[in-house]
C-alpha cells in the first residue's frame, strides 16, 4: 500500500484555510448557495486577497513561515495523516474537480482511498431533519450498498447522513467527509459514530486537525463528497437544503444523480421529488443504484427474504399500505391485537420490518420471495 504523503505547500494550504475560517465566513455566507467552493478554486494569494484583504500580507507571511516539522507533528499528535494532490494515494476522482482540495487530511484506514474509483463509491446525502421513513431507507441503502462492496460516502451530519453511515458500518466500508478537522467529532452527539468510523472506516477533511466548523465549510465539504463518488443519492431534503447543493455540484462534475421518491405531501421529500421530475434516477433500493452505476444486472443483490405464510403476508401488506402502529394494522387486517403483535414481531425478526423505540413500524427494503420479479 502507498504511504499517505503530502508536500509542504499543500499542507500549508490546509492550515491557511483554517486561519481563513472567520474571514471566508464573512464574505462567503448569506444565501444557501454559498460561494465557498468558488473561492476555494483560487490560489493562496488570490484567496487571501479576496477573503481578508486587510491582513493578507500577515496571513501569507505566517503561513509561509510554518515549519514543516511542526505541521507533521500536529498531524501525528491528532492521529491523522495527509495526502496531497501530488501524491499517489490522492483519489483520482477528486482530480476531476477544478476546486479540488489540495490536501486531504484523514483519520482511520488510509487503504480506503487507494484505488478508490468513482464507480466504487456512492454518496448518500439528505436532510438533518429526516422522517423515520428517510432514516430507514438511508440505513438500508447504506447497509446494502456496503454489503455489495461499495464505499458509502456521507457527511456525518444528523438524520440521513448518520443513518447511512450506521447502515454501512454494519456491512462494509464507509467514508465520512467533515467540515471541520478530522479529529473533531461534529455534531458532538455523533461522537460514538465518529469513533466507530475512525476505527473501521475513514474520516477525511481538507481542514487540519483541530479546525472548527464554519458555515462555509459545509458547502465546501459537499464538493468533496460529490466528487469522490460516481453517484450521489439524495434520500430526503426540503426544497432549500444543503443536500441539493451537493446534487448541483455532482451534476456539474457529470456524476450520476439519484433520488429516493417520497410522498408528494411530505415536505421532507420535496427535494428528491423535484429532482426526479427533472430527470434524476429513481432509487427504490440498492439495486437501483448498482444498476445505474454499473449497468442493469451487473451486480444483482439476491432478495434474501424467506417465505411468508398468508397471515404474515396480510400483515406485511398492511404495513406497506401505510399502517405504522400495531393498533392500525390490527384494525386494517381484522386480526386480534395479540395475533397482530405476534405477526409484527415475526416480520421484524425476519428483517421485513423495523420498529422504532416509539413502536412505529416501517417496511425495510428487503423484499419477500413472491415479489422477486421486481
Amino acid at each position, binding site marked *: 500500500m502507498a504511504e499517505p504523503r503530502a508536500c509542504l505547500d499543500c499542507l500549508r494550504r490546509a492550515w491557511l484555510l483554517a486561519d481563513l475560517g472567520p474571514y471566508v465566513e464573512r464574505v462567503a455566507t448569506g444565501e444557501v448557495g454559498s460561494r465557498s467552493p468558488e473561492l476555494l478554486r483560487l490560489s493562496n494569494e488570490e484567496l487571501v486577497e479576496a477573503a481578508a484583504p486587510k491582513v493578507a500580507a500577515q496571513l501569507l507571511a505566517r503561513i509561509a513561515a510554518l515549519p514543516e516539522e511542526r505541521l507533521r507533528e500536529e498531524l501525528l499528535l491528532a492521529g491523522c495523516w495527509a495526502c496531497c494532490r501530488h501524491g499517489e494515494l490522492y483519489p483520482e476522482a477528486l482530480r476531476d474537480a477544478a476546486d479540488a482540495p489540495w490536501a486531504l487530511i484523514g483519520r482511520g484506514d488510509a487503504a480506503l482511498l487507494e484505488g478508490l474509483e468513482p464507480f466504487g463509491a456512492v454518496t448518500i446525502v439528505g436532510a438533518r431533519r429526516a*422522517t423515520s421513513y428517510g432514516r430507514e431507507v438511508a440505513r438500508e441503502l447504506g447497509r446494502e450498498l456496503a454489503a455489495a462492496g461499495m464505499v458509502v460516502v456521507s457527511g456525518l451530519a*444528523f438524520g440521513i447522513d448518520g443513518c447511512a453511515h450506521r447502515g454501512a458500518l454494519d456491512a462494509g466500508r464507509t467514508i465520512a467527509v467533515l467540515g471541520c478537522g478530522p479529529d473533531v467529532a461534529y455534531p458532538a452527539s455523533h461522537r460514538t459514530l465518529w469513533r466507530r468510523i475512525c476505527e473501521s472506516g475513514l474520516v477525511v477533511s481538507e481542514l487540519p486537525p483541530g479546525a472548527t466548523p464554519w458555515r462555509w465549510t459545509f458547502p465546501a465539504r459537499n464538493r468533496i463528497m460529490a466528487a469522490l463518488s460516481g453517484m450521489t443519492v439524495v434520500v430526503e431534503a426540503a426544497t432549500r437544503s444543503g443536500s441539493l447543493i451537493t446534487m448541483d455540484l455532482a451534476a456539474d462534475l457529470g456524476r450520476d444523480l439519484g433520488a429516493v421518491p417520497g410522498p408528494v405531501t411530505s415536505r421532507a421529500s420535496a427535494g428528491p421529488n423535484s429532482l426526479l421530475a427533472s430527470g434524476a434516477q429513481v432509487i427504490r433500493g440498492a439495486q437501483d443504484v448498482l444498476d445505474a452505476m454499473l449497468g442493469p444486472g451487473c451486480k444483482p443483490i439476491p432478495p434474501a427474504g424467506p417465505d411468508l405464510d398468508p397471515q404474515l403476508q396480510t400483515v406485511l401488506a398492511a404495513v406497506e399500505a401505510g399502517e405504522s402502529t400495531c393498533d*392500525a394494522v*390490527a384494525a386494517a387486517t381484522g386480526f*386480534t391485537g*395479540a395475533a397482530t403483535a*405476534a405477526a409484527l414481531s415475526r416480520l421484524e425478526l425476519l428483517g421485513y420490518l423495523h420498529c422504532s423505540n*416509539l*413502536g412505529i413500524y416501517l417496511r425495510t427494503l428487503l423484499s419477500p420471495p413472491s415479489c422477486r420479479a421486481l
Partner: protein
Amino acid sequence: MPPSVLGVLATARTFTLDGIAARPVRVEVDVHRGLPNFTIVGLPDAAVREARERVRAALVNCGFEFPLRRIVVNLAPASLRKAGPGMDLAIAAALLSASDQLAWEGLARIALVGELALDGSARPVQGALAMAEAARESGAEAIVLPVENGPEAALVEGIETIAVDGLGSLAGLGEGTWRPAPPEPLELRREAVAGAPDLADLRGQPHLRHALEVAAAGGHSLLMVGPPGAGKSLAASRLPSILPPLAPVEALEVARIASACGRLDALPAGRPFRAPHHTISAVGLVGGGTSPIRPGEVTLAHRGVLFLDELCEFRRDALEALRAPLESGEVSIARAGGRRDLPCRFMLVAAANPCPCGRGETDPDCSCAPYEVQRYQGKLSGALADRIDVLAAVRQPSAKEIGGPPGEPSAAVRARVRAARERQEQRLGEGRCNAEMTPGEARACPLSDAAASLLADLYARQRLSGRAHDRTLRLAQTLADLTGAEEVGEEQMAQALQMRRRDHG
C-alpha cells in the same frame, strides 16, 4: 403540706400523625397555684399551641370553669414533634380531671382524639383509622373520637369505639351514666361500582386494549406513546377497573392511607387512581417535607395506578426520585428526626407524545427540530424508562372505530386478569405478580423449544440486552398465564417481543 399547695396532676392518652402512622402521646396536665398561665410544652407545632385558646373557649362555653391557676400541659414523649389539632379533646379532658370538674376513674386507660370548636363540639381529625389501630396496640380500653370519625375507627377490631359530639358528652362518659351506641363500621368498597369508568368506552384500538390487559394481568408498567387526543388518558383511567378487586387487607391499607390524608370520604370504590400534573415536585411525588412527613402521590396510589401523563414534561429530578420506590415498593424518607417508610406498591402507567408539538414526524405540520425531538425523547430512554415493561404505540382511532360498537366491558377483561393473577400467586406466592419476578425466577419460566430458540436467536444477534431479555421473559410468562398455558409458546414469545419497550434509538 396541704394538698392545694401540691400540684394536681392528670394524664390522658392521645396520638399525633406522622406520615401515615399514629404515634402515641401522653398528655400530662399540672394545675398549680401561681400566676394564671397556660403553657403547652413538648415540641408542639403552631396548631397544637393554639389549642390553648380553643380549649379555654370550649370549656367556658360548655359551662365548665377555666381554672385561674398556673397550668402546664406536657406532651410526652418530649422529643417527638406533635402536629395538628387532634389533641384538643385529650388536653381538655385532662384539664377538667386535674381541676376536679370531671370525675373519671379510667381516664388514663382511654385514648381521646378530636379537635375542639369554640362552642365545645368535636371536629373530625385526619388519620383516625391509624389512631384507632395504634390505640389498640398501646393497650387502651377504648378510643373516644368525633362522630364523623366513628365509622372509620370502627373498622379496627379489638377496641371499643366511642363517638362523641363534643366536650359536653365527657361528663356522662366519665361518670358511666351515658354510653353512645357503637358506630357502624365504614363499608370498604373493594371493587368499582356500577357506573364507574368502564373499558367499554374504549372503542376499537385492539392492540391498546391488549396491552392494557397484559399490563394489568402481570402488574407490568406501561408506556403509551401517541398523538394528543388518541385515547391515552382514557385508557389509563380505565385500568383500575380491570385490575382484580382489592383483598380485604389491601383495602384496609388503602383506607389507612386515605384516612391519614383526610380524604376517606372521597375514597373511590376499588383501586386508587392517581394522575398528578406534570409540574409536580419530587417531594410531592414521593412524599417528604419537614416533620411531620407528608405522603406523596406514590403512596396515595398504593395498590392502585399512578398515571404520569406527558411523561416527557415531568421534571427530571421528580422522575429520578421514582426509581427506588418502584423497585422496592416503599418510600424511605430520612429526616433528622428519624426514618419513615411509607408503602407504595403501585402500577406505573405513563403517556407521552412522540415529539414536543405532539403531531409526530409523519405529520407534515410537525415543526420540531431534530435536537428538540432527541432531547424530548431522551426522557423515554432514561433510568426511569428502564423500569417500564410494555410499550404501546397509540394512534388516532378511525372514524369507523369511534362510531363503532362499544368495546368489551371491564368485567369480562377483569375475569381473565383475575384468573391470570391467581396462576401467578400459585407459582410465586401470595400477592406477587410476574412483574416482580427476580431474574432467577424469570429464567426458570417453562419455555417451549420454539419459544426458547426465538429468544436465544434474538439475544445471540445482540438485539436484546440482558435486562431486556429478562423483561421479555416476564412478559411472555404473563401472556401464557392469560391464555392458561402451562408453558410459554412461540406465539406468546413473539407477542412479548413485540410489546416490550425498546431501548435502542
